[in-house]
């Protein structure tokens, strides 16, 4: 039994496999949330009030700090790490590996951060040295794109995905990079009052542009670049090149879908601000 998904080398089978390391990791994050913030009645509270404090999207949408956001993020994280997505992505299909990236680095972190209750000063960007540095928008954007590029280098993927520890490392780097990237968008930043919705929109638009190089390289490479997936037992006869092309497209489309959704929400919040309606200006 493996504790974390890694390339196995054996033919793919739909027989369920247990990955206890994934369960423990997801459980640990859930317990940490419960320990620090609790679930209590916040999970089942009604959110019918217009523009409740911290509302991400407007009327009827649960506010920031609602545990449901956190649980949705945790679910996405679990889906990205566990069988079958985790196992297929670790050793069989580059396209599923990219789906993992989208789930772990782009979808789960903002949902988890949305589940953090507002008004926790110890979690505000700018309150601590390293956190303040890492979550500065410029640094966060550069860090996240370094994560994207380095975790998709053929030498990194081929050397790390062969072992459970290496695969775990890539997943953790994605998750950490995603949290750092989304932090300036989601969490309050009293130290950076100028980083309002227009700046956040610009930040996300830049993020949609800078992964284009990696996308182009994956999508239009003449030959498979990852030996892990090129030499893996085939799944449903999908060729290594088609799989790689799908991986590139998924990187672009998946990233764009998530980021443009966030941009849309921020535009709406910006519109509400300009309409002088009571609304949070610092929450996505």
């Amino acid at each position, binding site marked *: 039994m493996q504790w974390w998904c890694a390339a196995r080398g054996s033919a793919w089978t739909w027989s369920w496999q247990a990955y206890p390391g994934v369960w423990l990791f997801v459980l640990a994050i859930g317990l940490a949330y419960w320990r620090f913030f609790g679930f209590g009645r916040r999970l089942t509270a009604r959110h019918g009030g217009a523009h409740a404090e911290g509302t991400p999207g407007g009327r009827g949408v649960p506010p920031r700090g609602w545990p449901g956001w956190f649980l949705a993020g945790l679910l996405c994280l679990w889906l990205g790490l566990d069988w079958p997505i985790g196992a297929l992505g670790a050793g069989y299909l580059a396209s599923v590996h990219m789906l993992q990236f989208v789930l772990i680095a782009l979808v789960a972190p903002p949902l988890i951060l949305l589940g953090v209750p507002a008004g926790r000063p110890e979690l505000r960007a700018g309150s601590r040295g390293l956190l303040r540095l890492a979550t500065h928008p410029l640094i966060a*954007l550069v860090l996240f794109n370094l994560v994207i*590029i380095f975790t998709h280098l053929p030498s990194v993927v081929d050397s790390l995905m062969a072992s459970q520890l290496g695969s775990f490392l890539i997943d953790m780097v994605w998750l950490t990079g995603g949290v750092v990237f989304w932090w300036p968008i989601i969490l309050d930043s009293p130290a950076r009052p100028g980083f309002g919705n227009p700046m956040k929109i610009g930040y996300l638009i*830049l993020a949609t542009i800078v992964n*284009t190089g990696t996308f182009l*390289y994956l999508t239009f490479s*003449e*030959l498979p*670049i990852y*030996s892990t997936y090129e030499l893996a037992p*085939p799944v449903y006869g999908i060729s290594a090149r088609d799989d790689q092309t799908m991986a590139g497209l998924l990187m672009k489309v998946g990233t764009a879908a998530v980021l443009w959704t966030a941009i849309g929400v921020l535009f709406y919040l910006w519109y509400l601000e300009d309409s002088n309606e009571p609304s949070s200006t610092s929450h996505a």
Partner: protein
Amino acid sequence: MSGAVRTIARSLSMATATLVSLVACDAGSEAARATEDSTPPSSTDAAAGYRGVVLEPGPRPDFTLSDVDGKAFSFREETESQLALLFFGYTNCPDICPVHMAGIASVLRDLPWEVRDRIRVVFVSTDPERDTPERMREWLSGFDPRFTGLRGDLEAVNRIQAELSLPPAIRGAVPPDGENGGGYEVGHAAQVLVFGAGDLRLAYPFGTRQVDWKHDLPLLVSELQASHRR
């Protein structure tokens, strides 16, 4: 946009350009390293510039088996003027056979027709019981309809492999119900043998990548053409 955003954009564009070139360099060096790992070259290989492993020179094997149409196929005669790629495997193989066949087929599609036309891929079944002519035709066509499938009884196939210093194919036990679809696996040699100009023989073990085939096949074909001109 504010100055801060312009600064972000400028920094990121520079970082991206640098790092994308790093990815490209990394992919190239990785491909080369993967080849080195999988096919440790002898001094002869390096001198000749092949990614495959150069074997002891020898004539092409002389054997005759049935093709998927039931016609006799004499390997030496039929491949005389071509670069011949010979592989022993079976169509129910879950890993090595489809990876080799898919890699070769994918590279052939990229080669100019005059190069592709001089290459013959021959797949000999090590599982004649399940590899019926229809099954082989269907399976090979999935990769490239020009691939030649041959079959004969396992004893004859193993004799051919022995002449080529390959291990014999061994049929595994039928697993308990439910495992592997109730089918058995067949242990077989994992390398593709290539017969080029004159007595040139090379082996391409499992782990050979498309980048290696793309490097060697045109080179081997051009040597073959040169030898025919002499």
